[in-house]
């Protein structure tokens, strides 16, 4: 595989030219570009079919609609990049939303209701992280267990009561500074922050090392156990941030676990180019993927595709994306 470039002892590589810049951009961010392309194509095709699809209002709906999934997928991407997985994130968001809402209606200041899910999310996932990193239980096993605990706990505690009467100031997702819904600001800012952190911090870079070659990472002096635990905590904190977007969108909070949320989040991360085997991927891709899902959902309504076929269309699109990605990687070799 590597030999193609090698001509004896030391390869000669010309300095990066302008044409090379785009090529490099494409090899580096290929998956992100593919997804962005798919979003743009969808917007153009459906937009020409029904111009209202491209109305500012609908674009706001599309980009804000899955913002909480995009934010949750950021943390999930980090977990997957380090070679783990978390299937309990949907249940976690359900629990955190209930906690946040309960605090908000109990008369505590709203900042506490915003802070609580982030802190508690990190704390709950610290337990997951410890079990995965130090007790060395496979993450899929730990998080399957955590999912049952959180689901069961939520139902027995709340009994399914709705939370209403939330203070107006709590509803941060309903703000629209400069006509753009607040979740979009959150999504963009958090994605850029995370992407920046993963590119420019030593810790962020080490995630790729841990997922790519754990043994070598250990030899390099990376404290794998501690960082694995911290990654799960960061993921929990992002789940908390996602919860804020999720819980403040409506004037009521449904204290149940959103159906299939974990699957949507994992799918967004994976389609976004995060290798499920660890070691590669960026959070920009997962955010694009979350937006793509929202775009598809909206497009299906606008094109009058019977909703009966919605899941089949999404499944086909996922498959096409993955196959295209595989082909691309193959051609690169």
């Amino acid at each position, binding site marked *: 595989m590597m030999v193609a470039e090698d001509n004896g002892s030391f390869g000669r590589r010309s300095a990066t030219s302008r044409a090379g810049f785009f090529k490099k951009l*494409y090899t580096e961010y290929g998956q992100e570009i*593919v997804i962005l*392309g*798919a979003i743009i*194509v969808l917007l153009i*095709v459906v937009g020409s*079919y*029904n111009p*209202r*699809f491209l*109305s500012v*209002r*609908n674009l706001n*709906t599309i980009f804000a*609609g*899955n913002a*909480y999934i995009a934010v949750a997928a950021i943390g999930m991407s980090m977990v997957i990049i380090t070679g783990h997985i978390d299937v309990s994130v949907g249940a976690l968001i359900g629990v955190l939303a209930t906690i946040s809402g309960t605090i908000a209606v109990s008369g505590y200041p709203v900042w506490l209701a915003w802070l609580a899910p982030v802190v508690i999310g990190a704390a709950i996932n610290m337990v997951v992280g410890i079990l995965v990193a130090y007790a060395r239980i496979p993450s899929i096993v730990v998080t399957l267990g955590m999912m049952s605990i959180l*689901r069961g706990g939520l*139902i027995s505690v*709340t*009994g*399914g*009561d*709705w939370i*209403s*009467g939330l203070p107006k100031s709590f509803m941060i997702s*309903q703000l629209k500074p400069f006509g753009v819904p607040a979740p979009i600001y959150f999504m963009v800012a958090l994605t850029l922050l995370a992407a920046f952190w993963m590119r420019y911090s030593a810790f962020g870079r080490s995630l790729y090392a841990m997922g790519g070659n754990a043994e070598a990472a250990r030899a390099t002096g990376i404290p794998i156990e501690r960082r694995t635990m911290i990654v799960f905590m960061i993921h929990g904190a992002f789940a908390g941030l996602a919860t804020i977007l*999720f819980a403040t*969108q*409506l*004037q*009521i909070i*449904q*204290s*149940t676990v*959103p*159906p*299939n*949320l974990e699957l949507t989040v994992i799918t967004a991360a994976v389609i976004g180019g995060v290798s499920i085997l660890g070691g590669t991927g960026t959070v920009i891709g997962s955010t694009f993927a979350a937006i793509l899902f*929202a775009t598809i*959902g*909206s*497009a*299906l*309504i606008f*094109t*009058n*595709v*019977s*909703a*009966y*076929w*919605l899941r089949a*269309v999404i499944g*086909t*699109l996922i498959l*096409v994306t993955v196959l*295209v990605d595989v*082909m*691309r990687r193959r051609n690169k070799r």
Partner: protein
Amino acid sequence: MHKIMITTVLSMSLAAGVAHAQQSSWTGGDDLPTNPLACDGTPAEVAAMPYDGGTPTDAPDRMGKTLTVVDIPKLVGIGYFSATSKGIADAAAEMGTMDVKTDGPTRANIDDQITLIDNYITSGVDGILYAANDPVAIAPVLKKALAAGINVVGYDANSEPDSRQWFVNQAQFNGIAKSVIDNLSDEIGEDGAFAIVTSTFTTPNQARWIAEMAAYQQKCHPDMEWLETVEAQEDNILSFNQANTLINKYGPDLKGIVGMTSVATPAAADAVTQAGLCGSVAVVGLATPNAMKPYVEADCVKSVVLWNPVDLGYAAAYVLRATADGTLKPGDTSVEAGKLGELSVINGSEVLLGAPFVYNKSNINNFDF
């Protein structure tokens, strides 16, 4: 790169192709026969039907004895079934001769529900109250319960009649349908266009209501335009997004949104509120009062259609008691249900709770569930 483009375009055109094939107006209802009520509300002539429920085998004499009862709703953890459970518990406390436990699947899953019921049959209970996730799928296990001498009464969602003794019908499908469509037409006018947000097309009650609504609308409000029905699971953010997309798609053509579940209706109301369209897009639907209070109080939603689920649970518990005591027998035409008084028997083996209830600004604060 261009290969990707081609693939994407191909899949898009494929999607568009399917779209055109599906253009025919389609509502999301089931394919069972419909029976729309008369437009002016004249009660339909109901032919008396012989009892078609089942009978438990060798049930012991339970007259006056304390009954061990398990209540198995479609799923636990949602407000609606919390309310029915509360009604059941209230009735049990009032009677003092019923030990009730509610236990249901955490997702509306037929298999989980069947397994639960099966387990309770083996563990030995006197009575089972259920709300079926699927009328046919649940039948064998209920028949097994009858065969084990257990009294079986359904509420909210029926099963095949011979697999249970009685079913407490919260409101007839056609009654709900009439109430929803009538309220909607009052708000959006006889020529208004509307869209539906439901949970999934496979949820039987929702599918039944939608079918009845379509039939009633055709019959009594033929000029109203049924735009489309979208699915939103039991997911409030998805419901919100779907409602938003409907608003964006139809713009000013859309006059009303109907929510079919306690999740979809408030989410649709929130979408309308946040779009600043209160008053120009009406929201009507089925929902529990607690979920709708903010929107009704803000005058964004004028009417919410539902029966009272606490009463439903309450009635179901009384029907079970009466059945176990032998005071409700096949052929009876009414049954005594505590504070609800006499309830009438319809369709052979169903007990009707009453007409659907419309919550509005004047009464919604009297309810807490």
